[in-house]
Every structure is written in structure tokens, then in C-alpha cells.
């Protein structure tokens, strides 16, 4: 009698798979929104694009309650220690999405203050291209992250321990010398208006 009920009421799986399956459908994003990508991030959370379809709707503004950091926007050098601290305050297991051109590479802001990609300072799992990316692209990034979690995740997070080297790009060695600086023409007189 008992055996008859048993055959429909259990599944056999791997513990790693089960843990990853739970984790990938309950991501808690930490919105590290510093620029216009943050607006798209809000649109992704709003009802039209509805990030909760992918189980990631619970945005938390404390890093201690999050496991997915979405860096949305350019990060300046003054913000880097803050970003690293927030990343380190997040409990394991945790992932990071670099959203948009500026977070991934500095974008158009190649100046003294803006870092050229956050992957130089924190480990990044998924890069989302675009300036800013559409909400669909961020959702695709989340789907890709879910796939990554499902494929590589383990219950004790041993896959993170293997990532023990710097993952970012090579250090930038080329800088403009002062005599290469751009000089704008000095005459700004407008042709449409006489003085």
C-alpha cells in the first residue's frame, strides 16, 4: 500500500542541482544604480517588463539581504571602495551583473575619474551590453545568469573558490601625455548672431 503512494511522490536528483534550482529562481538583486542604466533597471522591475517573472523581483537595499549585485551605470574612482565594500558585505552565494557599456568598459567616459570597467575591481559574472540596455537585455542577462547558476552551481559554493585569480582585463598602460591634450579653437563667435 505505502509503496503505491511512494512511486508518484518523490524524485531523485543531485543536491547541487536542487540547490542551484532554488537559487536561480529566487535571486535578490542589489541595485547599485549610479546612472541612466538605473532607470532601465527600474523599468525592468516595473509591471511592463516585470522582473518577477524570473523570480528576481525582490530588490533589497541592504547588501546583507542580496545575492545579485547589478551595477547599473558608470562608476567613478571615489565610488570604487564603496562598491567593493557593498560587494564584500553580500552573503554567499552571490553573483554580479555589469549592466551597460559604462559599467563594463567605462563607455564614453574615458576620463581621469571614471574607471574603465568594474571587472578591474570586483568579479563579474554577466555583462549586459547597451547604452543603456533595454529591459529585455537585462532580462536576458538574468536568464543567462540562471543558466550559469544551473550549470556551475554547487550547494557549498565550491565553484567560487576555484576563481582565485584576477578576472578583469589587462591594466591600461596607455595614457595621453600632456602635450597630446586637445586644444579647442579659441574663437567661439557665433555666425548666427552679430555682437
Amino acid at each position, binding site marked *: 500500500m505505502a509503496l503505491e503512494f511512494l512511486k508518484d511522490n518523490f524524485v531523485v536528483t543531485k543536491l547541487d542541482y536542487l540547490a542551484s534550482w532554488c537559487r536561480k529562481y529566487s535571486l535578490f538583486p542589489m541595485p547599485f544604480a549610479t546612472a541612466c542604466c538605473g532607470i532601465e533597471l527600474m523599468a525592468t522591475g516595473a509591471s511592463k517588463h516585470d522582473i518577477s517573472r524570473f523570480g528576481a523581483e525582490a530588490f533589497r537595499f541592504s547588501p546583507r539581504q542580496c545575492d545579485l549585485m547589478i551595477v547599473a551605470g558608470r562608476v567613478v574612482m571615489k565610488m570604487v571602495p564603496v562598491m567593493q565594500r557593498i560587494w564584500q558585505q553580500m552573503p554567499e552565494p552571490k553573483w554580479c551583473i555589469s549592466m551597460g557599456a559604462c559599467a563594463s568598459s567605462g563607455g564614453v567616459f*574615458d576620463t*581621469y575619474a571614471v574607471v574603465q570597467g568594474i571587472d578591474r575591481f570586483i568579479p563579474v559574472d554577466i555583462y549586459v551590453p547597451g547604452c543603456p540596455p533595454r529591459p529585455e537585455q537585462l532580462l536576458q542577462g538574468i536568464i543567462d545568469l540562471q543558466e550559469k547558476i544551473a550549470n556551475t552551481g554547487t550547494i557549498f559554493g565550491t565553484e567560487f573558490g576555484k576563481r582565485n585569480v584576477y578576472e578583469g582585463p589587462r591594466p591600461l598602460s596607455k595614457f595621453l601625455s600632456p602635450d597630446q*591634450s586637445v586644444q579647442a579653437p579659441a574663437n567661439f563667435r557665433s555666425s548666427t548672431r552679430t555682437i
Partner: protein
Amino acid sequence: MSFADIKEKLSAKFDKLNLEFSSFRDNDRVIVPPTDLIEILSYLKTTFCFDMLIDLSAADYLHLQGATHRYGVWYALLNVENGERLIVKTHLDDPDPRLPSTYDLWKGADWMEREVYDMYGIEFDGHPDLRRILLPDEFVAFPLRKDYPLRGMGERHNFQSVIRSES
């Protein structure tokens, strides 16, 4: 009181300084020497009632053709009563660009002078709290100077990287 009146009275009072007046579109400007800046600004404030300091900023004329001085600092004044505006400009040179603070005349000069110090390294004597306002405290350069490279001197990458297995 029009710009002509200001011009007349200022040149009469400070006749030894040969103040330079000019107008461009709706900007009325006077160029003053930095040594007499405070005296002229307090005279403008008390006599012509320029009771608001709209803006205080600077420029670096390092590679500009025809420029005789390196830095220019200007004060945009407003008379709230009748809406009259005046721009007071002064020039400075290396080394040690230094100006008296206008904090005692207009309290609003506080952060603007800090910003000019932050970006150009022009120091303001008598400022109550002259330290960097936008850049982090450990920054050593003055990035809006023309001899500072656009991409910086490596400050933006001068941080430790967080490794995944250690975070």
C-alpha cells in the same frame, strides 16, 4: 543704477588701478588686480548692493593664444533688488596661485571656493574649511588644469582588485 554708473564710480574710486571694463552681449565685466579684489568686492557689495554671489569659478588659460596670465577667477554678482548683474574677474599666475577668500562677504562662497581649489589648486586665504569637495581627499592633482592629462595619471585604477575566492 546702470553699468555706466558703476563704471564711472568704480573708476573714480579706484583710479590708480586702471580697471578694465568690457561688455559682451548682456555680460558686464570688470577686470581687477587680485591684490585689490576684496576691497573692490566689498565696495560693490556695500555701495551697489550686490548682495548675492551667483557664481564663482575659474579657468586655466595655459595654451590659449594671447593669454597673458595663467588662471582667471571670476565672481558673478547679482543685485537682488533690481536684478543687475556684474562679473568681476581677476587673473593669477603660477607658482602659488592664491586669493583672499570672499567667505566674509558672501557665505555662499564657501563651497564654490572649495570647488575652485579642488579643480585648479587656487588657494583662498581666510577660508574656514578649505579642503577638496568633489574628489577624494587622497587625490593629489588638480584635474581641470590644462597640463593635467584628460585620462588622469593612473588615479582611477589605483585600487586593489577583489578576487572572487577571497570575497
